[in-house]
């Protein structure tokens, strides 16, 4: 074998902000992707040594184990309140919450609306997987009409169980919210767009322009009873129609950021 002196260039590696341990997430779950995107963004912005994360109650309850970042763990739904407390006393730190749809849009609706309306300088990473993952796949506020879950066994009947909540649209009506968008993690193109949105959201915080939230359509193959590929397709075919991707709130100051 001939040894060749080939110059190597690292084009892809694990962000330092991500702990190298194996996560507890199921195969095909997109929590891992969104963790990575957050870590990459914070690293690219040089904010890893200046950030405090607030984990929530849900499958991502142990998110704090996977980031090389200071973290606190909130009660179910209360992450935006806890983050408010931290940000108000440490206004120069980057503070973000990482919340599921049951956590944010059901039990924590009061806290998220409060934080957004006050224009708290927080970034919220909002994982919409259309069910309560951690407790075994019950109906969430985001569960689609007709969707079968363990607590809507014949499919969500909107007459009895009400309609899904479109969180990004709802929060975009609040003046305190500077940047509210919905993205998806079901294919590479959307993953890249999601990363750009997360970058913008953290920049909005850094520039003190107001509250920022990125809703990420995510998969839950285990509780949906699908293979990872089927789950990806289900996001595309079913979720995108009820939860259109787009920018729901980009305040004039954010538009001027010109990233």
């Amino acid at each position, binding site marked *: 074998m001939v040894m060749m002196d080939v110059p190597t260039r690292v084009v892809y590696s694990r962000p330092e902000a991500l702990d190298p341990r194996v996560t507890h997430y199921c195969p095909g779950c997109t929590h891992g992707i969104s963790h990575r995107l957050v870590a990459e963004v914070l690293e690219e912005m040089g904010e890893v*040594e200046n950030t*405090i994360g607030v984990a929530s109650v849900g499958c991502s309850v142990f998110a704090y184990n996977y980031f090389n970042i200071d973290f*606190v*763990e909130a*009660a179910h739904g209360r992450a935006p309140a806890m983050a*408010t407390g931290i940000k108000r006393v440490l206004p120069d*730190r980057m503070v973000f919450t990482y919340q599921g749809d049951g956590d944010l849009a059901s039990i924590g609706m009061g*806290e998220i609306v409060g934080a957004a309306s006050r224009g708290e300088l927080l970034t919220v990473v909002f994982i919409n997987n259309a069910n309560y993952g951690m407790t075994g796949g019950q109906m969430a506020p985001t569960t689609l009409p007709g969707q079968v879950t363990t607590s809507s066994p014949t499919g969500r009947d909107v007459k009895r169980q009400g309609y899904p909540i479109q969180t990004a649209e709802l929060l975009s009506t609040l003046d305190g919210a500077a940047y509210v968008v919905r993205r998806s993690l079901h294919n590479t193109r959307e993953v890249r767009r999601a990363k750009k949105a997360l970058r913008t959201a953290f920049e909005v915080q850094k520039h003190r322009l107001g509250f920022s939230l990125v809703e990420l359509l995510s998969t839950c193959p285990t509780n949906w009873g699908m293979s990872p590929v089927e789950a990806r397709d289900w996001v595309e075919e079913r979720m995108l129609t009820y939860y259109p991707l787009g920018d729901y709130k980009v305040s004039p100051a954010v538009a001027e950021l010109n990233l």
Partner: protein
Amino acid sequence: MAKELIKGNTAVAEAALRVGLEAYFGYPITPQTELLEHLSARMPELGRPFVQAESELGAINMVYGAACTGKRVMTSSSSPGVSLMMEGLSYIAGTEVPAVFVDVVRGGPGLGNIAPAQGDYNQIVHGGGHGDYHLIVLAPASVQEAIDLTGLAFDLADKYRSIVCIMLDGSLGQMMEPAEIPPMQPLKAEIPDWAVRGNSDGDRRILTSINLDPPAQERMNYRLMTRWQEIEANEVRFKSYYLDDADFVVVGFGTAGRIALSAVRAAREKGIKIGLLRPITVAPFPNEVLEELTEKVKGFLVVEMNAGQMLEDVRLVVRGRKPVEFFGRMGGVVPFPDEVLTEIERLVAVPLTTNGHPRDRWLARMADVIG
């Protein structure tokens, strides 16, 4: 500094700020609101955060977050709001971060009313949130004492990484009395090692109350309990009046204790050898002095503005060795000194028993008054 005429709620707010309160989070509720209102003006003046939260759930969880940074933080509320805070208190206890809250207690249960009461004793002292934890609970009986205990509350919270509750009866929050507030002190300079700060020193810190490994969670519980033993050994505070030669003892905290003192003085004038024990820390409870008194005296009268919540803690110490009687008013009704005096006179005149439950006898006596 001179004394000024000042309302309890305002006094506690100003005292907190002067002993280094760095952030306040609260929600309006009578009879506590002046505390929040005072800080809504004063905190921004000093460049310190004040947030009117979306609810008491929000307020206590903001306190939780801010407490994780090691700063002196607090909230305040009244009974229905404090019920909402129980979740957050359990999490704060489970994370072992210091926090102070004020409960200006009003008449309940339910929405109740805005009159003074002591019906939150069980919820605060015996823990309304889930799991094994204890709060340090301070029960002042005057505006001046409320001011003094506010400083102590923050010191104890820091010292034991514990939650401290200043339990004010609605009357103390609303009442104006001459009192002196200590001068402005500098803010706490050092950040405790455990506090999150954003990895700025290269060390990563995680503050959480979750522990999926039962033996590890048990060790954490053990740590909380042994810390509580330390608090019980070192932090009991009470005030005694006329106890040296007393045959009988009234036990009462806060406003009930203060009213009882008037009755005790009136009884002394009539030659009745009676004294008063007024717990200042209702948690940790002054068990030791009560034990000593049990050996010495002929009987006890517990006076509260509830249906006998502290009564059970007294009975646990006395354990049927001496008669214990009870007198209380509930639902926001404040007892008159005359009523307590009548109870004292009855106590020393009638044959006493250690049988039955003092609450049953009291309810029977109150049938005509309340029923």
